[in-house]
Every structure is written in C-alpha cells, then in structure tokens.
C-alpha cells in the first residue's frame, strides 16, 4: 500500500494534455526544441581544462629550455654557480651571486618605499578623499603603470639621479651613515636609485589592488567598528585594513614580482657593477640587467650558457620569493579564515 506522501509511480503518469485545438506557447516550443546541450557543456569543460593545463605546459617548457641551454655552465660549476661571486667572461669564470644580491636588494628597497606609500594612497582614496577627487586620483595612480619602463629610466637618469646625488644622499649619509648603508662614494646611480625607480613603478600595481580590496570590505564592518566608539583612524585600522590584509599582501606579492623582473629602468640607473656591498649608494647589478646588457656581446658558448643560467636563477628566485610570501600569508591567517560575510 502506498503511503499518503509517496510520489506516484512515474510510469503511470501521463503528461498533462493540452486541450484540443490549442498550441503550446512560443516560449514552450522554443525551450522544447533545445536539446540537452550536453555536447556543448562537455566541450566547454575540455576547453577550460586545456587553458588550465597550458599554464603548466608553459612553465615546464620555460624551465626545461633554460636548463637545456645552460648545460655548459651547469656541468662546469654545478651548484657553485649560484654562490660564486666572480664574473669574468674573458677567463670563463662565472658566478651569479652578485646579480641575485642586486635583484633582491633593489626589490627590497622598492618594497620598503612603495608599500607604505601605496597603502597610504589607497586609504586616502577609499576613506578620506572627497568623491569628486576619487576618480581622477585613481586614474593618475594607474597611469603610472602605463608609462614604458625606458621612459622611467630616462627620467631617472636626468631627474632622479641628480636629485639623489645633490640633495637626498648627503642627508642620508649624515643621518644614517653610521649604519653603513649610506656612505661614500655618492655617484647618484646605484642600488638606491634602482630601488627608488622600482618603487615608483610598482606603486600603481600595489595601490590599485589594495584600493580594490579595501573598497570590497563590507560597509557593515566599518559601521561595527564605528558603533564601538572608534575614531576614523581606528575604524580604518580595525574595520578596513584588518579585513583587507590578505588582499594587501597579495598585491605586495604582485608588486614584488614586477620589481624582481624589471629590466630596462634598473639597467639604466643601477650602475652595472657585479659587486656585493652593504652600501646602498654603491653601484650594483641585477639578474635581468646583466642578461639585457651582455646577451648581444656573449661571444662564446660558455658565456651564453652563463647568461641563460642567470635567467634560470631569476626564475628560481622568483618562485622561492613567491612561495615564501604565500607561506607568510598562510602563517598569518591560519587561525582565522579570510571569509568576509
């Protein structure tokens, strides 16, 4: 015996018949004429899988190509290549450490300058600035990202470097000379100049993403903090920055990625000397710069192989830095989920 709530056997059910002489509506006819679309759905699925897999394929291809083409130096120096400090193309002695050092230090200088500035700009735009200024100001910061890096380089040579040499560096040497980071020689060009120009270049990346994340923090979070008796700054700190911190770290990682790989502007002001010194005013060299500068004059196979292995080093350093940054995000946010309701 079927219970009162059992659904009737589907076989016995007949579709409701239309009264004689009545056509189904146009919409009903159209919908009935569509098939299950299963084929299109499956096709779409495979297309998307293909897109996702192509990323892996590209990365794998780049890595194998870099390893294959730097066989000569890998065989000759092994791991010592990454820790060697010599760069002597004439005698065929190569080490990547000064370049790795230059890339990391100039990027670190860039982050130290750009992060507070970018977060400040974002706070101003999202929380404080009058509405009519918001659009133009965001547009201007984003415009910085559209300037070609060679133009940045030229500007750095003609404006930034003299400015640093004449006005900024003397002050830094006076105030912080004791730290050993800012001492003679004061050429203007050098690690600091590279870091400053990089900071301007990554500023729009960090600030536009940070702004986006901060805007997406729900209004209810700001109200919750205000209702507890918070001042404006306390509201921004507890209600906005705290909720946006994962996104902000993400934007910093993207900015760092750009700083690590930036070539042209850095080459023009870093000084291009493969030295490892603590002094930020001294010239240095970066991985991207040495490849750009010396690739065309790499006359023998060993030299060429060394430059390609520098490229491999850059690839590895980028991966390691990104992994560390992600680890940091994970460690910071382990306790509390990132979800914002």
């Amino acid at each position, binding site marked *: 015996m079927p219970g009162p709530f059992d659904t009737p056997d589907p076989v016995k059910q007949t579709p409701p018949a239309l009264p004689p002489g009545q056509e189904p509506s146009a919409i009903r006819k159209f919908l009935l004429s569509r098939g299950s679309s299963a084929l299109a759905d499956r096709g779409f699925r495979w297309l998307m899988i293909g897109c996702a897999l192509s990323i892996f394929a590209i990365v794998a291809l780049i890595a194998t190509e870099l390893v294959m083409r730097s066989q000569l130096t890998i065989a000759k120096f092994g791991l010592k290549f990454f820790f060697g400090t010599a760069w002597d193309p004439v005698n065929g002695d190569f080490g990547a450490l000064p370049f790795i050092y230059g890339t990391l230090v100039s990027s670190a200088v860039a982050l130290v300058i750009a992060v507070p500035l970018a977060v400040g700009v974002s706070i101003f735009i999202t929380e404080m600035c009058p509405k009519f200024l918001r659009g133009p100001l965001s547009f201007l910061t984003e415009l910085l990202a559209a300037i070609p890096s060679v133009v940045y380089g030229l500007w750095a040579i003609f404006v930034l470097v003299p400015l640093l040499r004449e006005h900024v560096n003397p002050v830094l040497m006076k105030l912080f000379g004791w730290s050993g980071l800012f001492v003679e020689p004061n050429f203007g060009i050098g690690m600091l100049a590279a870091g400053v120009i990089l900071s301007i270049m990554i500023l729009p990346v960090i600030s536009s993403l940070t702004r986006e994340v901060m805007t997406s923090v729900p209004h209810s979070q700001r109200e919750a*903090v205000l209702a*507890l008796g918070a001042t404006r700054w306390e509201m921004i700190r507890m209600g906005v920055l705290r*909720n946006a911190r994962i996104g902000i770290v993400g934007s910093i990682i993207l900015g760092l990625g750009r700083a690590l790989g930036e070539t042209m502007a850095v080459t023009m002001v870093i000084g291009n000397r493969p030295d490892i010194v603590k002094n930020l005013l001294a010239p240095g060299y970066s991985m991207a710069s040495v490849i750009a500068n010396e690739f065309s004059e790499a006359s023998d196979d060993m030299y060429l192989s060394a430059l390609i292995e520098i490229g491999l080093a850059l690839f590895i350093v980028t991966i390691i830095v990104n992994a560390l940054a992600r680890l940091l995000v994970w460690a910071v946010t382990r306790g509390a989920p990132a*979800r914002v309701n």
Partner: protein
Amino acid sequence: MGVGIQVDNLNAWYGSNHTLLDINLHIPANQATALIGPSGCGKSTFVRCLNRMHETNPVAKVTGSVRIGEIDIYADASPVEIRRRIGMVFQRPNPFPTMSIYDNVASGLKLNGFRNRRVTDEVVERSLQQAALWDEVKNDLKKKSGASLSGGQQQRLCIARALAVDPEVLLMDEPASALDPVSTAKIEDLIFQLKSQYTIVIVTHNMQQAARVAERTGFFLSGKLVEFDSTHKIFTNPGDKRTEDYITGRFG
C-alpha cells in the same frame, strides 16, 4: 544601569529627502522600547540618530536635540564619545571575521586602549553569558573565528560585543530579521533578560516581537511618529486610525 532618552524636535535628512519630521518622545530607562512601522518609515534612521551613526553618511543631516541621561548628544560631546556609551546591534550580524570569538567580544575594550588581561577575561565571559552564547563557544574562544559561527550565534556574538563596553543604552536595528525562528526566540529571550539593566531601543518589522519584548511601542509612518504609548495600549486600543490599520494588517 541604563539612562532615559529625551528626544525633542528631531528632524533628519538624507540629501534632500526629509526622512524624520519633528520627532518628540521620551524613552524610559531600563525598559525595552519597540519601534514599528512599514519599510522606509524612518524608524531605522531614528535609532541611528540616537548614537550619531546617521551622520556617518556624507549626505545626511540632523537638527533638534537628543538628551541621553544628562548629555545633549548633539551639543555636549563628540560622536566618538557618544558611541562609547551606546551599544548598537545591526540588522545583519557583522562580527569581525579576522578575529577570534574572544577578540570579537574584547574588540571594544582593545579599541579604547584597555589593557588589563584579567579584567578583559572576566568581561568577555560575562558578556558572552549575558548574550547566552558562553556555553556554545567557551571551548574555542580563541580557536574559532567570529565568522565561523552560525547566523544566530553571530548575532548573539555581536550583542556580547556591544555589551562588553558596558553601554548605558543598547540600540537594536531589526536584530532578528535575518535569523531563523529558533535564533529569533533566543534573541527575544535575551532582550527580556537584559532590559532590567539596560535601556533598550529595538526596531522591528515583526509586530508580535514588539508585543512580546517591549514595555512601550512607537509607530512610525512616513517619517512621523504617529503614536507612542504602552505596548499594551498600542496593540489593544490604539488611539490613531493609522496605527490600528497597520497592526491589524490592513497595510504595510
């Protein structure tokens, strides 16, 4: 202990939209007062004027006077000082998702620079107990995020957060409208428990809720306070035809 609220000639605007017209009423201390009315009648704007949250919207404007206890909140103090004395619970639960349950409750104390760990521990426990949430969360106070709780628990967490700063007045803007019936009943029980110690103003869509929890009820319509009287009178023998139409379900 709570304090009474005296409102005189209160007018409020959003841009050119005049949302509150000449509101005058007295909200007694240590009782629950319910504000009912159809959507857009100004009841939420009214409670937001009581802790100066209304003016956080750049196009908003207020005139008139609101005295909470001895203080005229629009003349004698800054909005920040006012909000430290008045707790608020919003329509949608808004716990801080990046903070633990403990930190959520302690956030008002921390914000104002209160550092005493022992007292903070006590306040957190007492507030969670007042909000009837203690037993459900006591084992993962510092392990779980405020956002990991269910909707009803989140709202009680928000109530605990508001109670932790020991407010004189507790404003509740439709605190149960986003919750299921079981959670709603818990929130109502809570209001019942709390009203002997705090002055509670609760905005609600739900007339039965007003009848259950409040001593006094005000009926708002189109920005005006149509009637303000004891809850019993409003629901059994309203003085105004419009109030009667609304509570008998003829509109709204």
